[in-house]
């Protein structure tokens, strides 16, 4: 679990890992050592205040150089919200996240459809599963060139799609995507906030963290 200056949902993602049965390890943006972890989560927040493009500064953090290198060797990496933005800025994932079409920050309980269950982070779900997890962002509108989008769709790399309403204007209702190998996944909604009935709209988000434990064991 990487903490950048301005990361906000880092402790929450650690809780989610713990509840799924994993052992969270805190990583620091300024330290290139990943301490032998089996998977990396880039949490939500506003790294460096996101005063430049979201994630544009965080991608240059020492820790990201190792993350980029090991992701190329198959290390599972999940980017949530700001983490997704960092993955796009790092070119581990294609496309970009832009200002929400309606120009407001929006926080709501969002229905999502799981489109790809073969990634390191979604293998615990069934195809076409619908889940409800919170979405909360100001710059979550996914965009990419038409040929990139067609390729993502053709290769089954749209991992999650907004169902029952698109909260930010993302093209083709795309909520999350993965790289070719399926070990790097980025999504705008927050599965780590749907891990307990007491504090979330559901426990549907646990599947992301359970998936990676299975992927790590195999």
């Amino acid at each position, binding site marked *: 679990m990487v903490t950048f*200056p*301005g990361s*906000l*949902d880092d*402790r*929450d993602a650690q*809780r989610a890992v713990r509840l799924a049965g994993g052992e969270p390890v805190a990583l620091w943006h300024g330290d290139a050592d990943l301490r032998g972890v089996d998977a990396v989560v880039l949490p*939500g*927040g*506003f790294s*460096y*205040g*996101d*005063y430049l493009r979201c994630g544009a500064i965080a991608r240059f953090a020492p820790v990201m150089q190792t993350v980029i290198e090991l992701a190329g060797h198959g290390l599972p990496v999940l980017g949530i919200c700001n983490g997704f933005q960092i993955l796009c800025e790092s070119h581990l994932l294609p496309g970009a996240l832009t200002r929400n*079409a*309606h*120009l*407001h*920050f*929006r*926080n*709501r309980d969002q229905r999502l459809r799981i489109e790809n269950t073969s990634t390191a982070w979604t293998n615990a779900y069934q195809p076409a599963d619908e889940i409800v997890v*919170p979405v*909360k962002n*100001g710059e979550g509108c996914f965009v990419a060139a038409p040929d990139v989008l067609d390729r993502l769709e053709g290769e089954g790399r749209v991992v999650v799609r907004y169902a029952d*309403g*698109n*909260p930010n*204007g993302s093209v083709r209702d795309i909520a999350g995507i993965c790289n070719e190998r399926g070990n790097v996944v980025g999504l705008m909604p*927050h599965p*780590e*906030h749907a*891990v*307990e009935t*007491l*504090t*979330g709209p559901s426990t549907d988000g646990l599947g992301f963290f359970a998936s990676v434990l299975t992927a790590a064991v195999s």
Partner: protein
Amino acid sequence: MIDTVERARDTPDHQQPYSELGLKSEEYHRIRDILGRRPTSSELAMYSVMWSEHCSYKSSKVHLRQFGDLPRSEVLLVGIGENAGVVDIGDGYAVTFKIESHNHPSYVEPYQGAATGVGGIVRDILTMGARPIAVMDPLRFGPADAPDTQRVLPGVVAGIGGYGNCLGLPNIGGEVVFDDSYLGNPLVNALCVGVMRHEDIRLAKASGPGNQVILFGARTGGDGIGGVSVLASETFAADGPAKRPSVQVGDPFTEKVLIECCLEIFAADLVVGIQDLGGAGLSCATTELSSAGSGGMHVVLDRVPLRDETLAPEEILMSESQERMCAVVTPSDVDRFMQICARWEVTATVIGEVNESGRLTIDWHGERIVDVPPRTVAHGGPVYERPLARPLDLDDLTAGDPGRLPRPSTSEDLQALLLRMAASPNLCDKTWVTEQYDRYVQGNTVLAQPEDAGVLRIDEQTGLGVAVATDGNGRFTRLEPYAGAQLALAEAYRNVATTGARPLAVTNCLNFGSPEDPAVMWQFAEAVRGLADGCRVLGLPVTGGNVSFYNQTGDTAINPTPIIGVLGVMTDVARRTPMAFGTAPDEVLLVLGETRDEFGGSEWAWSEHHHLGGRPPAVDLGRERALAEILVTAAEQGLLSAAHDLSDGGLAQALVECCLRGDVGAEVRLTGDPFVNLFSESAGRVLVALPAQRRARFTELCEAHAVPVAELGTVRPEHATLTVAGQFGVPLGELRAACTGTLPALFGSPGR
């Protein structure tokens, strides 16, 4: 030329701009008496900001003493006078909470005004040694369709969201109220809650001669200079100049980093005392720290890191640049302190040293520019016994009995009224506002708006948690300030109890017009007296608060608006009572308390007839206590599946909200006048839902506490309709459309 102490002695007749700085002539002469000479320009700057109404409470002090006179509460660990009060919630945990206003800045520059309002209150909480864990925002605006509200509201909401979301603080509640009286004087109050272990409480004092004074956080700039004196303590002139340069600009990223940096410093136990820089900036921090500690301090002002190298010393002392803190550290801990700051890339500079001289001395490039007894600046300001006079129009207002207003006479009229009321700006669904706030971050939000109170988990193992609610009703307080303040207290208290939490402590933000107007001062005195008496009956301490005067344009003051925050504790948040119907099988509905024909100051009189008159609903705090006891006990015993307090808009509105929240229908049967039953705003009432099998146990509990309980009806999950038997039935879809359409229609639909 630098105005040094020496020069001040040599030029006693030098004319000084004290009135431009907001000081009255007699106040200026008092400063001369204290110093035995004229003040230097830097000293004058410091006195002017610290003796402003905002910082010195000079008009309110004589009244606020009543809060300090309340019986000593055993839960109060730190009381009034520190940055925020601290309450013991058990298991070694302490919670601190406080509300502050940022009304004037938010009118001048809505986004930055509201944003820095959040930033300021969060630093107050942090200063106590606590991790901030949530914010809430009670807001008041002019009429929803007024052009200026179109300017102010979107900016305020975006500013609160922009700052709070970036700090990673869930926004768990608050209010949005529209009323003509706030046109030109919106109220933007911000509450923050923080948690710490008992041993981690930190205080604002500079003790230990030789200890180092470290300024850390953002660099000092020219923003917010004189904010407190020029802005907060003066009435807006209708045709006055724009005051934008006095509004601070916020940088939430810097504050977020500052929070984490401070918490790491606290954990390493590296500070003797700490103070945030808010209103009055360095003037406030240096004088308050030194007067609370060893009594003296020497500061080298040219060491202060600047964003703008052209700033004069007076400006540096008055600047309200955000995201700054001042700590007192023993010499042996300075290196470790600096290392933590470096890790978080936070600028930190030793600017001075504590001593026992009894003086605060400040040098600027080797010359002495300040030499004052710090206590006279921080606490020696003037105290006024302002004249009080009951408002001349109050008799007319009280005589304007709402009983004479036309009431709906047919079922069709009642149904139409219910829909109109549910769609009115004050009662409608506030999602347009609240979805711009992050309510999930930190992962401990158990209940958030539109629930009766925000509920936070404190301890993941035991489930220990807190509930917080804020309430205030300017119309009730306008009609009868004593009762209005008590009604606000009663409602916040009831809201906390409704979720199942035991109320523990009170904070307040008292928003009023000009204290120089005897009618306003009378309203203030009555409201404070009402609040103090109310807290005595409820057995709650006041832990601190804030007074915001001068909320008026020209001669027209706002409706007096005391906003009351109540904090309660819950031993296991899993036992909280939410408001949604339909979460348990076979639910019956009961109403606790008595419904009377009470419409003075009601939402019905205002939104239907634009009428404000008569008397507000009667307050019975003994009854509120009994009601709270029932609600808390019932939650602990798991008797209730839902509960919702009856307040604005009465029973009708509560039913609408509970049905829509759970997306289930209900059928109710009314005895007596259906209009009074549905729309009266009698206090001390709560609507509850519970499985039929638990009804007998619950009714016994109510009888044991002598609170009347009446059968109302049942939840009907199979019927998506709210039915009032013998009167009408409204499909939920129609209700939802009425409730949710209003704000998007007024402020722009953000699309799906």
